[in-house]
């Protein structure tokens, strides 16, 4: 396989049934969700939005209809949530649930309908950011996992890991000011905002590392050039769209598709029950297996 062919005509119509992490949304017929849900996670300044824009161009040029979703974009509560954030008056749990409402609204009204129509959904952040923010603020991990058991398991999650020092540089270069929440100013009250930012981002990254084991997403080295990152993302997404690979693939044993989805679901349930020993390791697809010649030409 020298080339990753992404034209829809060549797409392998492998029926990979979607799954929720838990009971999910009532009355959703999972078999109808033919599209792909691809998540890009990362801090502000990790290059998330740039990468998503490039991915969208790439996909649409190849004829894949694409929909973008992200945090705080629901019709239901985005404005109210924005106001609440500005005032910083909500408690941690309340804020978590407010975000969960925003997420659920988009899941039901944008993500699921788009997947039903066979679209590719590019999610600029997903539940993982929301969970890590809540956990570093002291919310019980099991509780927040239960809240988000309504979420669909994405076809792929890419986490752009950028060292806090590079993040701080990029944010300052772009805005000349650090965001209050991304600096964890509600938690770290030191007068040194620069230090708070670094400390907070470290904590979030630590949480992502823990979650990576549980949820099996891929960490992408975001310290590199946008082009290098984009090439890696395209290679991996190309493999997924050709039905060759996916986030949910287990690296050990050649387990078949339904088998592995089941194991993922089981490991997630085990997690929710606080069982940390008896779950199978869930890992992302190794990058080396698929090479592509489809380079970024921009």
């Amino acid at each position, binding site marked *: 396989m020298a080339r990753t062919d992404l034209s829809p005509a060549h797409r392998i119509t492998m029926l990979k049934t979607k799954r929720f992490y838990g009971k999910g949304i009532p009355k959703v017929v999972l078999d109808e969700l033919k599209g792909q849900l691809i998540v890009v996670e990362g801090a502000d300044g990790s290059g998330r939005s740039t990468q998503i824009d490039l991915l969208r161009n790439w996909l649409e040029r190849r004829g894949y209809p694409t929909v973008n979703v992200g945090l705080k974009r629901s019709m239901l509560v985005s404005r109210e949530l924005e106001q609440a954030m500005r005032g910083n008056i909500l408690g941690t749990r309340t804020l978590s649930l407010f975000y969960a409402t925003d997420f659920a*609204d988009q899941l039901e009204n944008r993500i699921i309908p788009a997947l039903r129509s066979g679209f590719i959904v590019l999610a600029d952040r997903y539940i993982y950011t929301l969970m890590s923010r809540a956990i570093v603020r*002291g919310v*019980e991990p099991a509780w927040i996992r*239960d*809240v988000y058991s*309504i979420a669909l398991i994405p076809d792929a999650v890419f986490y752009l890991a950028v060292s806090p020092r590079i993040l701080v540089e990029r944010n300052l270069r772009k805005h000349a000011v650090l965001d209050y929440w991304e600096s964890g100013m509600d938690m770290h009250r030191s007068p040194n905002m620069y230090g708070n930012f670094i400390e907070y981002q470290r904590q979030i990254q630590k949480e992502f590392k823990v979650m990576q084991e549980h949820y099996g997403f891929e960490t992408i080295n975001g310290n590199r050039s946008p082009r290098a990152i984009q090439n890696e993302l395209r290679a991996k997404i190309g493999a997924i769209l050709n039905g060759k690979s996916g986030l949910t693939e287990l690296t050990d044993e050649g387990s078949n598709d339904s088998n592995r989805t089941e194991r993922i679901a089981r490991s997630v349930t085990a997690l929710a029950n606080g069982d940390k020993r008896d779950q199978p390791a869930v890992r992302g697809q190794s990058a080396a297996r698929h090479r592509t010649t489809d380079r970024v030409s921009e």
Partner: protein
Amino acid sequence: MTEVQNKESIAGKLVAVEGLDGSGKSTQVYLLKRWLELDGYKVFFTEWNSSALVRKATRKGKKRQLLTPTTFSLIHSTDFADRYERQILPLLNAGYIVLADRYIFTAFARDAVRGCDRTWIRKLYSFALKPDITFYFDVPLKTALSRILDGRTRVKYHEAGMDMGYSNDPYESFRIFQGKIYSEYRRMVHEYDFIRIDAAEPPDVQQTKVREILENRIDLPRYRWHGPIYPRHIA
């Protein structure tokens, strides 16, 4: 927050009232509150769906019919969490008697009827302390329906469960929806040790019973204000 606070370490007492619309529970909890505050006790009253911050979003969602069972559930849990984090829990820690007109059981009943998973709903609210006393105002479905339908000309869209598509007639829909909620409450009576109050009895008779139970279960003198009583507490 990592551990839900141990109940023994909380000085206050939590009293919840539950029941169908039209069961008379709001009247009863109002009378309870008047009695306690006029007699000089530390009392705080909180109502379902009343957090100022979240209410705006809820109202918009309801008015424009944007809510699904899941978002309906989550937005109400957000409202509850706001009141819980900022008022109910701090006041309980400060040794208040907190009276709640509807508590987590309302969500358990309504969200289950709307099709949300029962376990998920319970986990969503797992951070909330269980009440020391939950009064359940039990009234025959017929009586509750006639109290609401005779008294008011219009039932609201979500109150009538119109989002569930039971019927195009709001009154018929309301009857069906309330009937289903009624069965949910009945399931919970034993699960959560509700104290059943016969809400078909005259209001003053009910109130006498409620006060008796409260006095038996709660060492009231512990909850008295000390020092000078402020003007708003003078009868």
